């Protein structure tokens, strides 16, 4: 175990090289619907329990199934209405279980990225080989069902190993060269994309995917009232938009169809989407497009700035 994962260097949110999104946009805005499949009877992971009750765990399983049976169509209708293409964090087994949903998203040219195979299969306890196999299976499944070369990763149920990002990046290279496996949503250290240090030296970025704006974190963990969640989304946008006038920022709303698409929560979500997309200078985009744009235009500048700032800082603290 390490005291720091070593993925990124300290980089103050101050006097960074000015970031400009396409067409001078201030904020790159993306919505990441998690489209997940939870198993009723997953093998028991020794490090984390999937369900609180002996099977069948009706309460937890059934509300998650609600997301796919009922919620998906509602969120999709809203994203259509506001011209937003979803970037799907996908339990890739859903390609087999619910291909109807995959087809609807593919028709809309939404992005699919890997969120593991099932959200009830945790990375904890896996060997490197097992984790690599799981990641490879998930990326191949996305390619087989959608033709997309999976670019991004969010570990299933946010369960990680020390090697997760390395394995994802390397598997992406094996399968798709530079066209796959080049961004992660697993880190919450910044409001702008940042370069990530990997053992392979691959050009790889973290794209901000806000844990605080995540509906499940807001509703289930922090127990936020729905209208307050809508207000939080607007406040989050306001500040990122304001700061984006100086240098571009990223706002992400990670969603779950079993949370945000419940009848009592859609209004707050819709009002926030209407508010955000009602602003000019907002780049409504996807995770992949943010990562690609950043890699092409800012990755090298950022690396150089991080190195320069840390080098000069190190010099100054020397006696």
């Amino acid at each position: 175990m390490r005291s720091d994962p070593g993925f990124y260097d300290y980089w103050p949110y101050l006097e960074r090289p000015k970031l400009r999104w396409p067409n001078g946009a201030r904020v790159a805005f993306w919505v990441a619907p998690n489209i997940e499949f939870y198993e009723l009877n997953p093998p028991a992971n020794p490090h984390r329990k999937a369900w609180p009750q002996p099977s069948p765990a009706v309460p937890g399983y059934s509300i998650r199934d609600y997301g796919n049976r009922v919620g998906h169509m509602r969120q999709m209708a809203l994203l259509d209405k506001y011209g937003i293409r979803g970037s799907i964090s996908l339990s890739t087994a859903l390609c087999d279980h619910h291909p109807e949903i995959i087809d609807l998203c593919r028709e809309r040219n939404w992005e699919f990225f890997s969120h593991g195979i099932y959200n009830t299969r945790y990375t904890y306890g896996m060997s490197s080989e097992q984790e690599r196999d799981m990641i490879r299976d998930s990326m191949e499944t996305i390619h087989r069902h959608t033709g997309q070369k999976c670019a991004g990763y969010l570990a299933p149920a946010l369960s990680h190993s020390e090697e997760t990002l390395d394995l994802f990046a390397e598997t992406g290279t094996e399968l798709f060269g530079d066209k796959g496996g080049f961004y992660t949503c697993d880190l919450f250290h910044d409001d702008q994309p940042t370069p990530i240090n990997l053992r392979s030296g691959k050009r790889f970025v973290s794209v901000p995917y806000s844990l605080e704006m995540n509906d499940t974190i807001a509703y289930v963990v922090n127990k936020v009232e729905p209208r307050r969640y809508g207000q939080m989304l607007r406040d989050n946008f306001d500040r990122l938009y304001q700061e984006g006038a100086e240098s571009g920022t990223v706002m992400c709303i990670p969603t779950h169809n079993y949370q945000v698409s419940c009848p009592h929560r859609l209004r707050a979500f819709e009002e926030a989407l209407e508010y955000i997309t009602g602003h000019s200078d907002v780049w409504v985009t996807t995770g992949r497009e943010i990562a690609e744009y950043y890699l092409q235009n800012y990755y090298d500048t950022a690396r150089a700035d991080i190195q320069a700032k840390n080098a000069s800082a190190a010099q100054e603290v020397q006696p």
Partner: protein
Amino acid sequence: MSEKSAMSEKKAMSDTKALPPEHLQYPQRHYGMDHDLYSWEMLTNRKPVHWQQGKLALWVNVSLQFFPLNQRGLPFPPAGGMTMPYPDLRHFSLRDYGNRVGIYRILRALDKYNIKPTFAVNGELVQRAPYLLHLLRERGDELIAHGWNMDSPHYGGQSKGVEKELISRTLGSLRKASGQEVRGWLSPGKVHSENTPTLLAEQGVEYFCDWVNDDMPYRFNTNSGALWAMPLSTELEDQFILRNNLHSETSYAEQIEDACRFLLSEAQTLGGRILALNIHPWMLGQPHRIAYLERAFEFITAQPGVFSAPAHTLLQQCEQAMVEPA
């Protein structure tokens, strides 16, 4: 041990670390659900239901519950049950309040807004509160069986014989007391065993309300006969919003109003919908909360296209819609 050999031992350990092979095997990875309890079907792919009385049905279910003082909590304690060392008088009496005081406030509110509810009743309440059961019988509202008491859960791995007796005792008690057939079931805590759906269908139950994966009724598979799943939202329950999430009473009313608006607008184009409210007299029957329930009722019943109906009335219309030609 040298640092180097300690390192290599640690490396060897991490190399041998692995989960058993079944963790990377996916026997249920195929089209549809990963079980046979019901079929995969998105709500929008089903034939729309057109209610006879309007667009959006308001189904209010009042859960009447008994939480025993000598709670066993096996294999898990009931939500809302005893949490303090025995005798937990605070929770026992606060829950009991609902059946003595709170329910009468709720009844008054229901009647004021002409709402036709169902009552989900623990079987043991027949003995504990015969006055209340008699009153419900006189009112004639639909009764749903709610298990024996809140400390008698149905759960995975439960002996089939024990569960069968529990169901038959509950149904027998409520059928006798109410004079009704008692066609509906709500398991305590909305948790049930692998055998529950079949056991319920065997004993004449036509629908149960444990699954929160839909906003409309759908057919469940059993080994013994037809059983419908009726949608009774947990996310909109009073005790979920107020006790679990600690939201304000104002927010409770707002959430219901937002849900009502949304479902009503969806019902204009996609077919009939149900606004299902599960309420607890021990929660909303408190003097400081009842006005917020009334506020929600006032809002809902003022919307054109909303009507109130108990579960079985709605189910009959869904059954009818299934046999009618498109």
